[in-house]
């Protein structure tokens, strides 16, 4: 899908290239310029998460995969607008899976980049304060939470994500997995996402995905997670 979308949206790509650079401190969940979604800048260099995630993976993941979701999302939004303008309900409804997939891909990756950080520079270690208290309360211990997360990640059949979420009504923490690019929505607030698509680790870890799931804890940005938890 990526290449065909790229072929059909030259104008859109030109617009994306022309966008003004955003300050890294924006911490935006998703970024938009004049109604179009744009690829957010990474808050660190491509090589900054090594040796846990290689620079090559980060560059492809951000500049190619995430960019494709941004392009796909904008194309779907545009097609939805055209369908709406023509009163074509059938064509509008046909955009739903594309909006979910590409919009979800944009949202998920935007959250993911922000909840990672270079090891020792905001990444790794353990959560503290109220977040740690909540994790202990809902998972028994931080170690147990990590173990449960890794089990959930390993159990994903196909492409998908695992998320630490906060139930908006009860305030309780929970672990959920989502297929493909389905975003976390509704009553659940996503606090921490881990990408279990093969493109997130394959160039470095190949089929040894358990090693990737084990390594990623060294680059989790608990400061970001705590901010999302406190919201």
């Amino acid at each position, binding site marked *: 899908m990526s290449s065909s979308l790229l072929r059909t949206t030259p104008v859109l790509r030109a617009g994306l290239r022309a966008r003004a650079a955003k300050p890294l401190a924006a911490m935006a969940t998703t970024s938009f310029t004049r109604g179009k979604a744009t690829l957010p800048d990474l808050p660190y260099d491509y090589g900054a998460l090594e040796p846990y995630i290689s620079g090559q993976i980060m560059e492809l993941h951000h500049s190619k995969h995430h960019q494709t979701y941004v392009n796909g999302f904008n194309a779907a939004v545009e097609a939805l607008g055209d369908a709406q303008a023509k009163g074509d309900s059938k064509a509008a409804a046909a955009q739903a899976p594309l909006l979910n997939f590409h919009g979800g891909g944009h949202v998920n990756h935007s959250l993911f980049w922000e909840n990672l950080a270079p090891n020792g520079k905001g990444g790794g270690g353990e959560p503290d304060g109220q977040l740690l208290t909540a994790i202990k309360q809902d998972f028994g211990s931080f170690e147990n939470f990590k173990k449960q997360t890794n089990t959930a990640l390993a159990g994903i*059949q196909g*492409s998908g994500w695992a998320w630490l979420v906060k139930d908006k009504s009860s305030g309780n923490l929970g672990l959920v997995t989502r297929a493909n690019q389905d975003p976390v929505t509704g009553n659940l607030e996503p606090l921490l996402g881990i990408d279990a698509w093969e493109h997130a680790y394959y*160039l470095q870890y*190949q089929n040894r995905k358990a090693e990737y799931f084990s390594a990623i804890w060294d680059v989790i940005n608990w400061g970001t997670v705590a901010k999302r938890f406190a919201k």
Partner: protein
Amino acid sequence: MSVGTFSLPALPYAYDALEPSISAQIMELHHSKHHQAYVTNLNSALKTYATAIAANDVPSQIALQAAIKFNGGGHINHSLFWENLSPSSSPDADSASAPALTAEIANTWGSLEKFQEAMVKALLGIQGSGWGWLVKDGNALRIVTTKDQDPVVGGEVPIFGIDMWEHAYYLQYLNGKAAYVENIWKVINWKTAEQRFKGDRDDAFKILKASL
């Protein structure tokens, strides 16, 4: 209840035989690691399932169904996939090796090229991991896509499948899956496809029985 144990079927060619369309490194990992993991996990799930049946433990039986479908599907899909690929130097990789099938393809889509266009569109439209298949449904040919490792287990006869999981191409093609799809046409085993087209479901699934 005793259950059979599946084993990894040998590849009908060397790991590097599909180069340059599919690299030897991909083939080796794909066969010896990924396919092996589906076989191992299927055997493990079936063993636990047999225990649950013996114990009349229905909740456990139900809980195991996702693992059986996923790993059993992975075993079925990959077993069919290896057999429907061929080194490009072989006459089997020439669509002339499938006269009856290509005639029906032309009959259905107008031409082999038109069929390939439709198949490529379906393959590139898969959201996430999955497969694209040309199947015979009754007497009609159809293109279907399946998610994750869902196997084609309706009444259809799978003619050939193309693996669209990222592990099938990423080490060589990175995010360029369109190029992978373009190059895989050079290593489709049309002789196998013709045999499956002329046969029935049992013929297509012979390879599975052989791995028991």
